[in-house]
């Protein structure tokens, strides 16, 4: 177990280091997220009340649509020099590869959120500080579910003919529960959660994360192999 975790850490570290050296991908994804927030503002605004009401959904759509671009890249760097073949030739279980890539992607998407979400708070007049702790919880749980499935499906999609279109096609329908739960919880928390709805959405997010993390670990061998 310890050896596997060390291996996962090595994969994560390698991915983060290649990203940190150029920051090209991170900057592009962050830029897209910010751009989407602005575009949503133009489409829904400028009425401040309407903006505030739709902020929960808008934040999560911006995260999903920009984050999708990060995942294929995570395998693309392996495919360019046939590095994936070598990675798969190492003896031992393959789930550490998944966990490593998952951790790197998680850091990546959370990094984007760290800038994009406060910005969304400013643009859409949402008082994020009102429930900072539970909101962070929603963000972490929702992002974990999102990144788990994203990392998993990218393993498949990145090696097909039409990877740019196939990944969102596979991934986004699966994320409907995450989108609903995270957007509703965010909306409830930023408006004071008078109905106490957030707890139910928290539970749904936790269940989603557990189910799909376990399932992805179990069938990752089939997704990466072959």
């Amino acid at each position, binding site marked *: 177990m310890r050896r596997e975790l060390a291996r996962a850490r090595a994969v994560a570290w390698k991915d983060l280091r290649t990203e940190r050296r150029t920051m090209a991908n991170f900057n592009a994804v962050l830029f897209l997220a910010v751009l989407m927030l602005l575009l949503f503002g133009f489409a829904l605004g400028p009425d401040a009340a309407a903006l505030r009401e739709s902020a929960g959904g808008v934040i999560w759509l911006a995260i999903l649509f920009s984050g999708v671009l990060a995942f294929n890249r995570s395998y693309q760097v392996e495919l360019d020099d046939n590095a994936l073949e070598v990675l798969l030739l190492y003896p031992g279980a393959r789930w550490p590869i998944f966990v490593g890539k998952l951790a790197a992607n998680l850091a990546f998407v959370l990094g984007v959120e760290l800038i994009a979400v406060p910005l969304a708070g400013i643009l859409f007049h949402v008082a994020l500080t009102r429930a900072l702790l539970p909101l962070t919880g929603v963000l972490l749980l929702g992002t974990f579910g999102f990144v788990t499935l994203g990392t998993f499906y990218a393993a*498949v999609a990145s090696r097909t003919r039409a990877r740019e279109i*196939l990944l969102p096609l*596979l991934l986004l329908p699966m994320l409907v529960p995450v989108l609903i739960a995270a957007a509703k919880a965010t909306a409830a928390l930023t408006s004071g959660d008078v109905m106490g709805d957030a707890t*139910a959405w928290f539970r*749904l997010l936790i269940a989603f994360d557990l189910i799909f993390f376990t399932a992805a670990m179990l069938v990752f061998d089939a997704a990466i192999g072959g």
Partner: protein
Amino acid sequence: MGISGLITLLAFVALAAAQAFGFVTSPPDRDMGDLQKIMYVHVPAAWSAFLCFFVVFVESVRYLWRRDERDDLIAASAAETGAVLTALTLMLGSIWGRPTWGVWWAWDARLTSTAVLLVIYAGYLALRAFADEPERRAQWSAAVGILGALNVPVVYMSVKWWRTLHQLQSTPSTLDPRYAWGLRLNGLAVLAIAILFMVHRYKIARLERRAERVAEEEALAYLPMDILEEAHV
């Protein structure tokens, strides 16, 4: 006419007979009138679609277990049949909803989760279309098929909490007995059609695989030996 032709004929005759039975035995509904007859295809199509997706799940697990190509092809056939039936369910529901609810589409729990189900399996079919190498395609679609099936209850729960206004679903026990037998018989008839589609689709898939294999062998036969050795074929 061979056995499969006979089964095809029987399935369609059974469907026509069950439809006729439903139309003759059930009186017009008090509120909906003859509109209610849509139920005789809408509900059975939904039942059979769910059965198809269950087959996708079971065959995907079995494929990863035994690595038998046939399991993969059965899963593919079931997914395609299920997608067609799901689309049919949604379309009929929409036609029924317009005069009953006054709208073609309502954001209700069952309706919305069925639509999500359709796009999940459309993704599965797209993956199959975009992956060329048969063994990889089988592995990948098995993995995707399993995760997709696991999401069905989760999607349903999440959308249900999100909102609901669908009328209680129609099963023989929630119906006036005069409608129940029509529904049961049509359920069986549509099931026969679904199985028929799956069998035909499976046969075609087998033939396609055979054609792929022949093409591969022929392509390899034209390669000079030294290239083959270099590529470790």
